[in-house]
């Protein structure tokens, strides 16, 4: 499933979608950046509550297909600007991480 399809199906709001056709090949959840850096796989959808600009560097270097900010976390405006600049798909939802995971799991299966 592509990031754009996932966003449409789920109602996850798109804050930046420079690469709508990227395939979501897995899921990773985490807020500790170097933990994510060590464990997230290329193509994963990354669910987090972290909203500072370092998220973009981690997303770029791990090659995740999109970042999904959960639990209604308000991103820094700088984050959205940077996501567009660096080519990172950025989505947001008010769902709790667990509920967002259930939804994504369903959509991907």
């Amino acid at each position: 499933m592509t990031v754009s399809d996932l966003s449409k199906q789920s109602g996850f709001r798109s804050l930046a979608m420079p690469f709508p056709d990227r395939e979501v090949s897995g899921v990773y959840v985490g807020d500790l950046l170097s933990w994510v850096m060590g464990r997230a796989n290329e193509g994963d959808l990354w669910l987090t509550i972290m909203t500072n600009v370092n998220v973009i560097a981690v997303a770029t270097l791990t090659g995740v297909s999109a970042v999904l900010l959960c639990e209604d976390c308000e991103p820094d405006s700088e984050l959205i600007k940077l996501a567009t600049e660096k080519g990172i798909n950025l989505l947001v939802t008010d769902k709790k991480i667990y509920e967002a995971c259930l939804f994504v799991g369903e959509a991907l299966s």
Partner: protein
Amino acid sequence: MGEPLTFHFDVDGDNFTSAGEASLSMKKNLRQLGISPEIIRRVSIAMYEGEINMVIHAGGGTADVTVHSDRIEILLADRGPGIENIDLAMREGFSTAPENIRNLGFGAGMGLPNMKKNTDSLVVDTALGVGTTIRMTVLI
């Protein structure tokens, strides 16, 4: 590839919200050189962790990357406080990151372990009150 290619970066120690610049631009350079995605991923993740460490723990430093035909070398050097116990620092979960840094998502104590995991060799040279030099090699 003939002569090795070298890249130099000054890593600013003041601004940890824009840190990662050197690693991100190195990633671009490697892509332009046609290095394989897996090698690029390993090099840029290891370099990023080292770069962030220099910003957070050492007030900045320098990064020098040399691309040889058979390997990529990353040299990180800072004049920070040094690492008191390197065996401890290499352990997963060990961190001295202060509260304000942890709030940004750092401080899992996974940076040095990630650097080790993603490189073929990692050599740390550190002295208290003098600084830290880290040399990492990734074989192509």
